[in-house]
């Protein structure tokens, strides 16, 4: 365990757990529940200060360099997995992270196999699961679900994606990948695709304001950033530059973060095809760009990144997905 610079909260323990060392998780929240009944939670990327980000990323780098050093660091801890929506990367990487820290997980399983089908509220479900675990990861289709959960439990809640809201742990691994590949100095990031409903975009754009990145948002008019995100970026002093054509900015970018345009958001299939086709990248498009351009994607992709990009030096999305384990190990190590 590293020693961390902290704003020391009042000493508290719950079932023997020390309070989180990420003190700012409870004080930087805006528009999200700061905390429930005494625990620290990670509900939104807006909670994370520059110091918090650096703390998690530094710890992740230490763990990635020597995972054996933490192999039994949390042998007495159980992480509850409450996934009300499908997940591959988030769920499996949290599962792997907890187990690689020596702990274990208890999994709610599919919604169909739980009391949710009997009409149980989310508030009741998380209260029950909190009795079985030392922290909860929650994914739920409704925006604000993680905030609600945090108000009903005494263990840390980690938002694993709430509808079209936030996905802060994805952001941490995104930032880790960005720091590894491009650094934070004079960083220029292009974020392309579904900016309206993409929760990874909402979280990442907030966090990038902490590293003073220049951000370009590329999307069809109908999928622009939502008002609430633009409001926060403005409040944070970020300059929002919006485009409808990636060619306008491609050559200026250090990072191109591509997201999936979600077919289900379009009432008209033809309109979807037209839009999706315009926000697709392939090796040809990247032919003339700087070799250092890093192409990222939170995955899953459908066809917005052609397979021929995988063979280029730009493709970083599988490395990005792998980074989910050390980053989530670091987060759990710091929060538990």
């Amino acid at each position, binding site marked *: 365990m590293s020693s961390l610079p902290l704003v020391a909260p009042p000493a508290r323990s719950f079932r023997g757990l020390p309070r989180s060392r990420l003190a700012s998780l409870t004080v930087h929240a805006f*528009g*999200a*529940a700061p905390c429930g009944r005494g625990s620290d939670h990670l509900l939104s990327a807006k909670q994370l200060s520059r110091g918090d980000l650096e703390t998690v990323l530094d710890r992740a780098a230490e763990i990635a360099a020597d995972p054996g050093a933490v192999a039994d660091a949390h042998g007495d801890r159980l992480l509850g997995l409450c996934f009300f929506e499908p997940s591959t990367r988030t769920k499996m990487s949290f599962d792997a992270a907890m187990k690689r820290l020596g702990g274990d997980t208890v999994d709610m399983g599919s919604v169909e196999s739980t009391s949710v089908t009997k009409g149980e*509220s*989310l*508030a009741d479900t998380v209260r029950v699961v909190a009795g079985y675990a030392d922290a909860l990861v929650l994914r*739920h*289709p*409704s*925006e*604000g*679900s993680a*905030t*609600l959960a945090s*108000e009903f439990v005494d263990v840390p809640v980690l938002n694993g994606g*709430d*509808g*079209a*809201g936030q996905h802060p742990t994805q952001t941490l691994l995104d930032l880790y990948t960005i720091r590894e590949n491009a650094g934070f100095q004079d960083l220029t990031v292009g974020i392309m695709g579904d900016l309206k409903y993409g929760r990874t975009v909402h979280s990442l754009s907030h966090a990038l304001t902490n590293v003073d990145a220049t951000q370009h948002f590329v999307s069809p008019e109908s999928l622009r950033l939502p*008002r*609430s*995100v633009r*409001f926060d970026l403005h409040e944070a002093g970020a300059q929002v530059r919006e485009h409808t054509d990636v060619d306008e900015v491609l050559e200026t970018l250090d990072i191109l973060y591509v997201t999936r345009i979600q077919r289900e958001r379009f009432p008209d299939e033809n309109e979807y095809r037209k839009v999706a086709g315009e926000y697709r990248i392939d090796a040809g498009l990247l032919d003339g760009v700087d070799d250092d351009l890093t192409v990222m994607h939170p995955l899953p992709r459908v066809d917005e990144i052609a397979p021929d990009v995988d063979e280029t030096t730009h493709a970083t999305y599988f490395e990005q997905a792998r980074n989910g384990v050390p980053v989530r190990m670091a987060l759990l190590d710091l929060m538990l």
Partner: protein
Amino acid sequence: MTDPELRVSKIEDGTVIDHISGGQALNVLAILGIDGSGGVAVSVGINVPSDRLGGKDIVKVEGRELSQNEVDVLSLIAPAATINIIRDFEVAEKHRVSRPGEVTGVLSCPNANCITTEAEPIDSHFEVLGEGVRCRYCDTIIRESIADHISVA
């Protein structure tokens, strides 16, 4: 009654909410949860001529003194409203509404995918911004037509 001043008679004890933006009186009552079912006598004037506002609404609630906390939420739809606490037919206290920091259980979130729209044991909760309000749960910002989102009956 021929004198416009006497359209609504004086009350002995209670609260007069004056200078409400024209047409918002019923929303004011909705926010305050006053629907007459509690037996409280309520007088309402809508689009009453006013030098200051052109046309204003006025609400008189008899036998009930509304607290500052209760009325501050009115600032979202009636920022110019004044509150007069009446005792023995005289104005005992007079003050303006001020913007609260947050509003709980008064507005419903317009985002159909917000957790507050589901059957959960929570009230809606909005932070009050310089302009508009913001859902604590899903971050949705309401700036226009806030009265359209009043959730109380």
